[in-house]
């Protein structure tokens, strides 16, 4: 195939966008994510009730079923929980927490993981050995177990959840970045930079980092979903977020006790939302992985 010398095209005319439009799962995934971004930003102003404002609750309205079932009211579309909190409002606020934690954890662990990956890949030797051995040891335990252990030591709290997730999540970023760093390091432009007198740290930041961003972005996208799930599991087990700031996972837990007595909506709806968010992220992540895969120039 002859070399095609591309001119700087507008992004919207590019092959990326063209493939995006042709890929139904990418569109669905993005639609889901955009929907939830909308929920998170505008949601609180749209729902009438702030579920954490005790004054606005009416205990009499506890365990009202969703509007389409007998006993439901239009005031509470998805029903209420044991405290009379509107489930829709709770889900909106809960999604904020879950997504916030997911994104924050992604940023923290990618920062730490990428840094360690760059160091391990570029310097090699002892650095590589130590960092990768720690990673290997950590990977031999299920991440949930490690997070569980850490949380029971730290106690509940959003910041503590973030720390645990970062401790658990950095490994996959480090490995991905290390692999890409190793392959970029072989390329001649890195040797050219060395021959130009650049010190190593400048080479890493200016030359290697921009070129390992692509796989990093793919991993990061999918990791958001993973973090949401781990946080949900932790909260479900009671060692995650505090009850004053319930995430979706905690909502599932709250409804779990009464699940079998027929009051299913308090657990199922938050659970379904978790599933939908992670599904959307995975769809988009898959598309990104295929699209951003370095192909023949």
């Amino acid at each position, binding site marked *: 195939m*002859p070399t095609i010398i591309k001119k700087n095209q507008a992004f919207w005319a590019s092959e990326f966008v063209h493939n995006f439009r042709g890929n139904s799962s990418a569109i669905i995934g993005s639609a889901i994510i955009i929907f939830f971004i909308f929920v998170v930003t505008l949601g609180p102003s749209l729902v009438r009730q702030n579920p954490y404002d005790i004054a606005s609750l009416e205990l009499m309205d506890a365990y009202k079923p969703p509007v389409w079932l007998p006993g439901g009211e239009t005031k509470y579309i998805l029903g209420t929980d044991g405290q009379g909190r509107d489930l829709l409002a709770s889900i909106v606020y809960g999604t904020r927490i879950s997504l916030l934690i997911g994104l924050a954890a992604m940023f923290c662990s990618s920062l730490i993981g990428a840094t360690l990956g760059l160091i391990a890949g570029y310097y090699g030797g002892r650095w590589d050995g130590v960092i990768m051995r720690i990673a290997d040891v950590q990977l031999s335990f299920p991440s949930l177990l490690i997070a569980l252990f850490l949380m029971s030591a730290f106690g509940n709290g959003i910041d503590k959840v973030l720390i645990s997730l970062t401790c658990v999540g950095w490994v996959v970023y480090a490995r991905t970045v290390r692999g890409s760093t190793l392959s970029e390091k072989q390329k001649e432009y890195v040797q050219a930079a060395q021959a130009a007198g650049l010190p190593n740290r400048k080479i890493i930041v200016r030359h290697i980092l921009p070129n390992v961003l692509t796989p990093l972005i793919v991993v990061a996208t999918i990791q958001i979903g993973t973090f949401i799930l781990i946080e949900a599991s932790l909260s479900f087990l009671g060692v995650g977020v505090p009850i004053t700031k319930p995430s979706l996972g905690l909502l599932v837990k709250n409804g779990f006790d009464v699940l079998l007595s027929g009051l299913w909506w308090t657990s199922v709806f938050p659970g379904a939302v978790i599933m939908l968010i992670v599904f959307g992220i995975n769809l988009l992540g898959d598309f990104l992985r295929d699209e951003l895969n370095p192909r023949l120039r």
Partner: protein
Amino acid sequence: MNNELVHIRGLKTYFHTFAGVIKAVDGVDFSLDQGEILGVVGESGCGKSVVGFSIMGLIDAPGRIESGEILFNGVNLPDLDERDMRKVRGKEITMIFQDPMTSLNPLYTIQAQMEEVMKLHSTMNAEERKKRCIELLDDVGISQPASRLKNYPHQFSGGMRQRVIIAIALASNPKLVIADEPTTALDVTIQSQILKLMKRLVREHRTAMMLITHDLAVVSEMTDKIIVMYCGRIVEKGTRDDIINRCRHPYTLGLLGSIPNLAARQKRLNQIPGMVPNIMQLPSGCAFAPRCDYVQEKCRSHRPELLEIEPGHATACYYPVERQL
């Protein structure tokens, strides 16, 4: 007596990509007789490899053969359905690829890979196949062939792998071997051995060979006939002697002048100015016009067709040059 084995007529292979249509091969005519060695020369992007793949029927989407005929022993190959084509591929026409490091499957022994071809295209039993494998390995110059049958590709060096690949290509006694840059990845001393080997074998078996390469020095030593390609079209074709000593197309002249002479030092190389045009934005008229030292008005507006200037020697140029030695 008609010795003609392959006749390509008006072959057009286009690739329909997102960015546009790539006219990789845009109207190519040539023929090849039995036992003849044809050199297909050109620089990267000229379409020479695509010609080879088109003959083998190995053009995948987004590419396809738009029009033209590929007559092999009178049969038009693009007309054949995949099943019939498979009977031809590997038996009548075989291919040697460029990179010996990746042409062999690292997971299977040499014997397994050689026998695969035999199992598909012949009715030999296991005993006969093994014997033939040893014969072939010996033929291509691998010492102690019997002991090397069970070796894996990684146990062979680049040059030896290429010998094995040649052996596989000749295993079924094909009528035509298409070799796509067979020695480009090899060192000079190994290249020399492999080329000698290939020439000897095709002469012995009266196999025709299409040698696709960018290396003019290699074609000048190996071939009977040469075609020179530029931007998907043939700009000149003729016997080896015609092209090397009496070329008439400015591109061929420029190409020959660009190569430093091994036998004598020069002051400055004759360079062809400019670059190969973007294959999706070919100039109207002659594709070489923007870079040609001898260009005239007519060249820019009308695309020249191949015209015979002496028997067997044709060039696509309105103002063919005289070669200055």
